[in-house]
């Protein structure tokens, strides 16, 4: 039997029963979802109430924010002594030379302003002509850095590398490290993927040698043994020795990061490039590297974060980087005893940069992932 054709009518949407929306429902689901969850929440809230208010009082409410003598801080021990950081700020950020010559502080300040005006657009997705910015940052900026920070031209007084310190030195070590490590690392990565066994063996040995040793032994080696490796008369000061050590070390890690990116390129790309009749170097430069480097940016940023933290090791061989400068300041006669503030301040600066970079690299990774999936 055939009925008349029925038409399909959609039932209206209803709201779920006991409609659980809003703050209360959220709290019930995410903080008191089960007995165990409720207990966890209570314990954590209790711990917060125990420890957070005293810390906030010490660090913010009762803190000594201004003043330029320790007597102010000594009078109020209930709060942190941020005044000390204020007094020593120039020194901690820019080192002894600029700390002692306030009229020269404009030099590092300018260089950082230039650096960030170049860097921030590079990190933003929509910026046009990133290639030009990149070239400016990698080639022109180092020259500017040398002119402004080292000085000696255009009537700018010389600030010798031995006098570099504070965050400025940390930045210089990390930047130089990545700047020189990048090209070496790329060559090593290509070598490690080469089909020629001797080349491969050389690159693998180099990479694994540097990756196998802690940076501190490399810095020791650079600071005590480097002069032995060069003909008499060739000598570098401590900062340059550290830079050499860091560059060698970092190039191995960069190589591994780049290699990861290269191996993620589909085989079809190589085949297509070969089918076009491109030779090895043309293939590599125009087809393989642009793709491989793009994929490996997150990994390179991660190795850079590690390097940025690792630069603090130079304080063990006596350089006055951010960590050592903060420590020295908090152990100076005037401010002896305010270690916690010194470490926290230095730690906060390190944290800000590392956290920012790691967020950036995570975002990039996510974006690359979706790009590849589409």
């Amino acid at each position, binding site marked *: 039997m055939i009925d008349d054709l029925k038409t399909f009518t959609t039932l209206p949407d209803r709201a779920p029963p006991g409609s659980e929306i809003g703050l209360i429902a959220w709290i019930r689901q995410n903080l008191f979802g089960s007995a165990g969850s409720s207990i*966890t929440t209570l314990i954590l809230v209790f711990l917060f109430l125990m420890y957070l208010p005293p810390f906030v009082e010490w660090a913010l409410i009762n803190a000594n924010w201004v003043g330029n003598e320790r007597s102010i801080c000594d009078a109020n021990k209930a709060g942190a002594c941020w005044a000390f950081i204020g007094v020593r700020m120039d020194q901690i950020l820019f080192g002894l030379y600029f700390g002692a010559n306030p009229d020269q502080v404009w030099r590092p300040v300018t260089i950082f302003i230039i650096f960030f005006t170049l860097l921030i657009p590079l990190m933003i997705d929509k910026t046009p002509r990133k290639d030009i910015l990149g070239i400016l940052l990698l080639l022109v900026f180092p020259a500017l850095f040398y002119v402004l920070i080292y000085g000696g031209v255009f009537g700018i007084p010389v600030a010798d590398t031995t006098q570099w310190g504070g965050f400025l030195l940390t930045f210089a070590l990390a930047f130089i490290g990545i700047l020189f490590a990048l090209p070496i690392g790329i060559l090593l990565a290509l070598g490690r993927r080469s089909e020629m066994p001797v080349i491969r063996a050389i690159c693998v040995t180099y990479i694994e040698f540097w990756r*196998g040793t*802690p940076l501190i*032994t490399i810095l020791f080696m650079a600071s005590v043994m480097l002069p*032995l490796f060069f003909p008499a008369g060739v000598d570098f000061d401590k900062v340059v020795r550290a830079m050499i050590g860091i560059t060698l070390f970092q190039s191995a890690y960069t190589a591994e990061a780049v290699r990861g990116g290269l191996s993620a390129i589909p085989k079809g790309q190589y085949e297509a490039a070969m089918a076009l009749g491109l030779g090895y170097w043309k293939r590599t430069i125009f087809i393989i590297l642009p793709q491989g480097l793009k994929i490996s940016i997150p990994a390179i940023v991660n190795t850079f974060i590690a390097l940025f933290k690792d630069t603090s090791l130079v304080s063990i061989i006596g350089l006055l980087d951010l960590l050592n400068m903060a420590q020295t300041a908090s152990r100076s006669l005037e401010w002896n005893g305010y270690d916690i503030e010194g*470490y926290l301040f230095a730690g906060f600066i*390190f*944290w800000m940069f590392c956290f920012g970079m*790691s967020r950036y690299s995570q975002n990039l990774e996510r974006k690359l992932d979706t790009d590849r999936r589409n």
Partner: protein
Amino acid sequence: MTDRVRIPLHRDPKARAIAIQLIALSLVVYGAYSLFQTTVGNLVARGIQTGTSFFDEVAPFNIGFSPLLDFKLGESTYIEVFFIGIQNTILVSILGIVAATVLGFIVGVVRLSPNWLASKVALCYIEIFRNVPLLLQIMFWNFAIFLPSLPAPKNSIEIGSFYLNARGLHMPTPIIDNSSGFILWALTLALLTFGLFIFARRAKVRFEETGRRLPVFSINFFAFVFCGFIFYKICGSPLAFDIPELGRFNFKGGGQLPLPLFSLWFALTVYTAAFIAENVRAGIQSVSHGQTEASHALGMSRRDTVRLVVIPQALRVIIPPTISQFLNLTKNSSLAVAVGFEEIVAVWAGISLNQTGQALIIIAMTIAVYECLSLLTSAFLNWYNRRIQLSEL
């Protein structure tokens, strides 16, 4: 059959590859050779005699902490210092690896907890500790927190026969001697262990034959503790303890965990755990939802699903990067030099180098120690990955 066409040498890929490799090799060899020449020349010019003769010289400094190898000021030689350094590196690494693994797994699991607050606390932990230089953390804990807040030896915090002060933790150590009671106890313990092992095997066979399960681990654990204690009493409590006692300035007797060791261990643990936690989170998340669903659909309980389906798969993702973290922790223990714990870099590449000036040999030996550790680690990782691949592909 056709004759092989003759290719001009410079266009023959094989010939070209050989040529390139020969050039590269000779460049490397030449570089190494000239480096060696310059170095030797420099050494001669500075009148430094490089050699291993200083190994047998007596080391003119003291080493306070050496739990297994004996160090006597005025008798022990440099080469002994070297081995003590290795010993202490291994010791602090093992302590750190154990603690960091436990903490890292806890934080990683809490990170995935359905409780929002707990998950965010774990996230804060991870983001704070992995984004601040380890060296800074070591110094912070040691110089800014532990050292100022712990009392002088005279006012030590006392917990039983344990004493905590700004120099470290003093504790009783068992005196292992050859008394008959002790030997008897050691023997019964060995027998007990063997017995429990057999029991575990039997329980497994029984489980496979009948499907009935026994809580083997709990039974064995309690049996071991309980019987061990009973035997200890029966053998007449054969262990004597060396108990620390307060002398005029410091404690005498017993064992000591120096504060630098503690600070170093603490910082290494907290730092590495943040990385391990991320590995654990990623590992657990890598097990697809479909796996747990399939297991549930078969009627498996939540506990069995986690134990038999999720953990085995997650571990395959977690283990390789975590082993690398273990290696990193070991390498990072070299930062001990900042707080003065006597591991290899501090006593060998630091003090011994300053004393003897034998930079070349000493640095080479230090590097060799770490290279050995990395080679061992990567050999293990290769083996592990190959085993995994065998069972998956």
